[in-house]
């Protein structure tokens, strides 16, 4: 079989395009859904924290977190049916262990730092969550890593420069950034 260099170039370009498309499609499936779900939870939860008071705010966080998690898991399972990763069971176990350990380390760090108000605790939890997401992204797919940087930056800017409106800032900007990134990954990437 003989082909011209131009045909060879076109074939290699076609392979490259499909490879990129496949990687994006797999990464976008999980990342975009979890980003949109978490963004909506943040938007509702933090905005409520800014304006409402304790038992109601706690219930809003509990309900939105449960609904968001169930939605993300349901959509993740749907995506998982389209691409079956043979190593996913073992990987899932390791990911779960990683998040449990990270939560313990975060709790220990918060106990040692002994923050004086809710804003400090919230910022520390967000930073630990972003570290975890970045670690997962680097291990599973580099393309799922970059979004943690603008979200962490939004949290720090809000903490240092808008302390009076920190929760509203996190709701609108933190949640908004996540929703926008999720939509961008899903429809434009």
């Amino acid at each position: 079989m003989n082909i011209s260099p131009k045909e060879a170039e076109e074939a290699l370009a076609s392979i490259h395009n499909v490879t990129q498309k496949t990687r994006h499609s797999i990464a976008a499936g999980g990342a975009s859904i979890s980003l949109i779900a978490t963004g909506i939870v943040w938007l509702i939860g933090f905005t409520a924290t800014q304006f409402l008071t304790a038992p109601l705010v706690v219930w809003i966080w509990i309900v939105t977190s449960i609904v968001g998690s169930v939605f993300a898991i349901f959509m993740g399972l749907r995506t998982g049916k389209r691409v079956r990763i043979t190593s996913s069971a073992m990987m899932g176990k390791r990911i779960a262990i990683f998040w449990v350990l990270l939560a313990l380390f975060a709790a220990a760090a918060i106990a040692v730092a002994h923050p004086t108000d809710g804003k400090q605790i919230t910022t520390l939890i967000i930073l630990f969550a972003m570290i975890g997401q970045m670690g997962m992204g680097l291990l599973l797919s580099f393309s799922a890593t970059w979004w943690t940087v603008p979200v962490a930056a939004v949290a720090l800017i809000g903490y240092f420069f808008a302390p009076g409106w920190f929760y509203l800032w996190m709701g609108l900007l933190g949640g908004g950034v996540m929703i926008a990134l999720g939509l961008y990954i899903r429809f434009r990437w």
Partner: protein
Amino acid sequence: MMELNETIHQPVRLRIMAVLMTLDAGDEVDFTYLRDLLQVSDGNLGAHLRKLEEAGYIAVNKTFVERKPRTYIAATDAGRKVFKEHVAALEAILKSK
């Protein structure tokens, strides 16, 4: 020098193999996922998958998920080897230009 593979070189089959090679060995994709990703019809994709399966380059796994029939496709070891050789042959042609 590496040989070009006529079965794999056909444009749709080349793209099918490129998708499967993006996954780790043993991982599978659903028929509908492949169809949507490559933007081909059911019949067209089915025909090309049959050719690749007959050549031993892919494995087709028909199963039931939640009582619904699903077809999963994975590249075989032979398919992965042949695809790599095919890509190496294409690159060699470009280098010799």
